[in-house]
């Protein structure tokens, strides 16, 4: 297994390098000049040129890219062109809200969706099953920001139970953090709950119709044992796949939720950096996202083998 992990991680270095080069190229091709944006409306051409020189934007494309890559390899993500703050500090400031929101969303989605999917699968075409299927369709269709506004209206404005916006860091106490995360998590989870519930339901219905389930019943196995020991275990890989995809795509999904709920996370940092053409920040965030995706994929692949012994790594 160790060799497998090392080979995968080795391959990921090439992937990250290629992704970084592509993204760096895209930011340049898309137009935009951070010196002009930074200088503002009142700057003279000479001022803009001085700022451009200070930012190192006068350097050729590949020199800039490899210069950046060289500093990254030495453990330095660079400095924001706009705030003159180390990029690592910016990411560190913004990482916690996004990380806690992502974890809360994944945990909530699994805890809510898997039981719902199981219950729906136990009685296919029953009223409960149809309710679950219909609800999942609605959850897929409703945009996240509308869900967010509705939740704010109900739980903040009408009931006064939860804050509208903001994030309380973990250092302020877990309870405070969770309170600020309830509405964003509910908003972001909705679509993942729907996705996981449908995946679980479909997988369970498929597995429950298999011969080995009938054999287990014939041998006197109880429903709970059948559901959790046999059926769910055989559906687990499909669920793991969806969870893995969910973690990777959450980084994109958090942008809207962070905006609606005023969370200072990586999603908003990414949007701001792209709008400002803050290249060092964009590059570092892409590096982070690509690395995360690779690690998540690797972990999911390893978990396949854990839940299904027939799979070897």
């Amino acid at each position, binding site marked *: 297994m160790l060799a497998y992990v090392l080979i995968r991680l080795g391959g990921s270095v090439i992937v990250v390098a290629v992704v970084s080069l592509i993204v760096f190229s895209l930011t340049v091709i*898309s*137009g*935009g*000049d*951070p010196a*002009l*944006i*930074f200088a*503002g*409306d*009142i*700057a*003279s051409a000479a*001022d*803009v040129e*001085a*700022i451009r020189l*200070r930012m190192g934007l006068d350097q050729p494309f590949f020199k800039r890219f490899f210069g950046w890559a060289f500093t990254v390899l030495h453990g330095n993500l660079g400095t924001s062109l*706009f*705030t*003159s703050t180390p990029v690592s500090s*910016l990411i560190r*400031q913004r990482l916690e809200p996004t990380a806690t929101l992502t974890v809360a969303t994944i945990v909530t989605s699994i*805890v*809510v969706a898997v*039981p719902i999917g199981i*219950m729906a699968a*136990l*009685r296919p075409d029953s009223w409960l099953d149809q309710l679950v299927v219909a609800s999942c369709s609605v959850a897929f269709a409703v945009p996240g920001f509308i869900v967010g*506004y509705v939740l*704010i*209206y109900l*739980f*903040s*404005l009408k009931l*006064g*139970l*939860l*804050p*509208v*916006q*903001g994030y309380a860091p973990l250092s302020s106490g877990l*309870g405070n953090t*969770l*309170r*600020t995360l*309830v509405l964003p998590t509910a908003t972001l989870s909705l679509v993942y709950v729907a996705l996981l519930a449908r995946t679980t339901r479909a997988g369970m219905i498929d597995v429950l119709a298999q011969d080995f389930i009938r054999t287990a019943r014939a041998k006197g196995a109880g*429903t*709970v044992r059948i559901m959790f020991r046999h059926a769910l275990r055989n559906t687990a890989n499909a669920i793991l796949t969806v969870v893995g995809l969910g973690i990777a795509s959450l980084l994109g999904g958090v942008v809207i939720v962070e*905006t*609606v*709920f*005023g969370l*200072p996370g990586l999603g*908003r*940092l990414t949007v*701001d950096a*792209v*709008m*400002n053409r803050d290249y060092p920040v964009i590059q570092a965030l892409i590096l982070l996202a690509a690395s995360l995706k690779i690690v998540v994929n690797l972990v999911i692949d390893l978990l396949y083998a854990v839940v299904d012994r027939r799979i070897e790594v």
Partner: protein
Amino acid sequence: MNNMLSMNRRRLLGSLAATSLGAAGSGVAGLARAQTPGTLRAVVASDLRSLDPVTTPGVTIQHALMVYDVLFARNHALEVKPQMVADWTVGDTEYRFTLRPGLEFHDGSKVTSADVVASYRRWSQRSASGQLLATLVAEAREDGPTSFVIVLKRKFPAFLEVLCDPVTPMFVMRQADAAKPATEAVTTAIGSGPFRFVPREWLQGSRVVYVRNPNYVGRTEPASGWAGNATAKVERVEWISIPDPATQVAALRTGEVHMIENIAGEQILEARKDSRIELLDNPGRGAYTLAILNQLHPPFDNVKARQAMLHLVDQDELMLGATGSPALYEKCHSFFACNSPYASDEGAAPYRRPDPAAAARLFAEAGYRGEPIVIMMAAEQPIWLNISQVLLAALRKVPSLNVRPVSMDWGALVARRANKSPPGSGGWSIFVTTGASTSLSNPLMHFFGRANCDNAWFGWPCDEQAEQMRTSWGDLATDAERKAAARALQARWFQQTVPFVPLGFMKTTTAYRKDMIRGVLSTPLRAPQWNIELLT
């Protein structure tokens, strides 16, 4: 088996419900309100990204108003009033100033004339007003610990008007900070203003924190605009970043924030439903909307094509597209901000009503031959995008025009607008932008009215006569003379220069909880939080 399944389901539902209730039950009403007593929480117009108001104006000006002090400041009526200056004398070409006693920086050092002179020199390198003064000032020097002298090359009656520029004010920094090159940002924020910046609590994109400066010496005159007594009346101010306008208003309603500096137009009706929310119009703080024309290339290198654009504009349509309500805008056909002293209707009469037929005729007279008219539209800026789309529809009322809308983000637009190539070769013809009223309040500080060719703003209008009229305006001594000269300049702009196309004026409103705070001031441009008191 069914019974067992039912029990499992009930147990499961029960545990799910318990989880949900546990999450919700841990909250109580008002839990998100300030935990620190004496804290004022405000949503400001945009995120603070830089601490240096010289290298990076914009929202940094607002930050600087909290932290730094200025020599002179504009009051509610945009009049120039002394702030750090105790008294001054005016000779023919010599201005002699004395600072108020007791002024000190947040690090405990005294404010001296050396700090002022260094700050003036740095400011004069970057701001438009400073650069103008740099051409007029022969010498700026210390004249004792708290006195300094500015000597002009010639008599210039508008000197204080320009020195007290509300768009890019001259903040007084420590000499060591002001010694930095004007293109290199100062990364500390140690001023002598009413609030101290708390760098360790600054979370970019989320929160900026200030605490009261107990050593601030306020003026005795009452606070008015940016002038008068700027003493902090709360212990702590937090600027909270909430990008979504609907969430801003929801947070105001729950009391999580006390005020929204600039409430979005579409949220004003929502805010009006809550009797606890007060809406304060800021006449000096609106956004004057304009279309910039590229005068280097056809068709807008010809004055008739530029005048044709004036004929195409329907300000009601454009402003409704931007704001959604007639209550949120004013039509303004002057090249000067309509709430400023020098606004007039001189030369505007032919353009008060849209006339596409006249526009088509003028485009033909300009020799238009189907050259591409590239209109750049910033896709992620909803107000500018809406206005651009209405303007696009107006352009299409002239069938002969070859209009090419190009959608991009603001960052790309900022880069492309600097491109002087022809519109069909990577350049551009039109883009929409906004300017603060104070940027268009008089000829000298008229940011968009400059017609000095390559040195003008984007669009690069080139009209030597208009430029001479604009720059000599500061030489006039009386208000009557200045008003007459402003009218003459506007007539010239309509007849020849057309430096931009006026599209209307969008109002700016501050929303605050009147049951929680009092003392909110109507201010020019940005709104610092001095003079505000907490009621709860």
